[in-house]
């Protein structure tokens, strides 16, 4: 587990931002989802050791969030949502400085700064003053400063904010590349569900200060009863009738039919193909039906 939080309660005066929140954040790439004001930011602050919980507790990378904030921040890289840099420095100096702050010796920090900036695609632009950078370059340098000290956990806050489609693709590729097979765990806080779906394996949905849903995306998208979506070439009332005669529940949305039938996926598929052949229906597509991540999110927020 990357982080384990038990009954975490955080208050700002009389307002309770996190209300007995419990979550287990697994290794890999995890999306932190939630509407505005849900408590995501407070959760990140608490995990970084900036806020002392009023109740409960937890650990990040095995370190206590109440007492080991510094140690946690040494092992974590944060890519903030907002533009940020150190005035008067070029990208190499900026990232090397971030490395030194994290505890790297000066020479190693400088060498490593070159490496991560090259990795993040800044190339020769790394010698330019950061204040002259475009939005996309600023996003990359924020990622570079978060990566420089080789963190075990990366916290990315809206990493694709302000990026054009190509920049967004490249940023998501970078995140995907870092978070898969490189030993870096990533938590992505984002409102862009397609981005989360693209790079993350797990999600944690926070709403009104509580975790309302968490788990592997693939599991959360599964619909109870494992229905199958069938796409027909043209409408076929005979096929629908025949399937219903076999005891299936059929919901039609245009040419797409959602079929629920007892049995394994293979058995149901075989039944569908057999029925289609018998009724003359032409099947153009067949897949196990899934909820969209948006659907999962909305349901979790409503809960």
């Amino acid at each position, binding site marked *: 587990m990357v982080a384990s939080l038990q009954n975490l309660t955080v208050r700002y005066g009389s307002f309770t931002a996190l209300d007995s929140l419990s979550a287990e954040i697994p290794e890999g790439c995890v999306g932190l989802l939630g509407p505005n004001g849900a408590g995501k930011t407070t959760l990140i602050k608490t995990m970084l050791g900036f806020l002392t919980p009023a109740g409960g507790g937890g650990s990040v990378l095995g370190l206590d969030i109440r007492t080991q*904030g510094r140690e946690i921040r*040494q092992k974590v*890289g944060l890519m903030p949502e907002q533009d940020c840099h150190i005035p008067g420095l070029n990208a190499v100096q900026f990232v090397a400085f971030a490395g030194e*702050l994290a505890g*790297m010796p000066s020479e190693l920090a400088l060498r490593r700064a070159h490496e991560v900036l090259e990795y993040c695609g800044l*190339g020769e632009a790394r010698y330019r003053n950061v204040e002259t950078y475009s939005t996309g370059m600023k996003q990359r340098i924020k990622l570079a*400063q978060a*990566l420089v000290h*080789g963190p075990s956990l990366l916290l990315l806050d809206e990493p694709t904010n302000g990026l054009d489609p190509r920049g967004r693709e490249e940023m998501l*590729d970078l995140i995907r590349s870092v978070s898969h097979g490189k030993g870096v765990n990533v938590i992505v806080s984002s409102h862009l569900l397609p981005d989360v779906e693209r790079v993350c394996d797990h999600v944690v949905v926070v709403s009104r200060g509580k975790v309302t849903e968490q788990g592997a995306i693939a599991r959360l998208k599964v619909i109870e009863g494992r229905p199958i979506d069938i796409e027909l070439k043209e409408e076929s009332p005979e096929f629908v009738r025949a399937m219903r005669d076999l005891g299936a529940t059929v919901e039609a949305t245009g040419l797409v039919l959602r079929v629920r039938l007892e049995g394994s996926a293979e058995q149901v598929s075989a039944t569908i193909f057999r029925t289609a052949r018998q009724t003359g229906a032409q099947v153009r597509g067949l897949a196990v039906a899934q909820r969209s991540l948006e659907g999962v999110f909305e349901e979790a927020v409503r809960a």
Partner: protein
Amino acid sequence: MPESGLIADLSYRGYDGPLLPPTHRWWVIARMGVRQAFRKRAYWVVTALSAWYYLVMMAVLFFFERAAQSAPGARGEAGFEAFIGRIVWKDQFLHGFGFAQLLYLIAALMLGAGAIANDNRSKALLVILSKPCDKRDYLAGKWMGVFLPLLTMMLIPPLVFFVYGALSYRDYGFLDNPWFFPKFLIVLVLGAAVHTSLVIGISSLFDQGRLAGASYAGIYFLTNFFTQLMVFAWLASQGFRRGGGLRGGAGQSPFAEYVDRLYYVSIDGLLIGLCKAIVGTDGSPQFGMPSPIRPVPAPPLLTTVLVALALCAAGVAVAWSRIRAVEVVR
């Protein structure tokens, strides 16, 4: 993903080198401040300019000594002896310190006005405080990052003059007071600390270095202007009398003493007062030249030091209240 670059292997690799324990990060921040200061050409120009009194004094001493050597017989030597007899060595440091006040202000503005204000503008705290640093590290680092270059700038000219004097004028009493230079060092440390604390405190109130700089310069000049104006007005009303001193002499009237104290009610005046009180002098004419002007007496040591420390504490307290670590993630 980058397509090409000078570094062949562009895939991400973890860092497996050493990481220092997550303590004392203030020094990293301070070191960055010092590096940035030392890279500025203007810093060295101001440092060189702040040495003008010492350089002129060294030139005057050198000239008089040469003139004495070239004059025939005992006449030259007597002239030199008379000249050097008028020189109070510790007062030369006081004058060097006093005349460089404006340049110390310029250096403080250059080094400190943007120290926190520019960070506020660029949201540098988001980066700095997301590392194993806290508010104390940040403030201590910023403070030292201004203080150390400022102290260096204030120290170099008198140190050069001290070495020159120690090598050349030992026989004329230059080293008679072994505690003089350590005391003067305390003056420099306190002077740099006052400037640093105030400029850092004001810097923390703004998100633009220029505004912070203008505010600090405004406070500096306004306090200086009004105190000097009042002193001058009173002097003018006294008719700039000679004999008993241009201010009529402390002790002659209670108002004279009040005016003498008023002289120190500014940042500039406070630092000069500190120097006088700690070094233990009221001052004397510059360059060892005869002058009818009665110097303003030194202020009370304890009060002056306490006021300086209070200003330092106030500046730091303002900065402390303005830096909010918890805002690192909004």
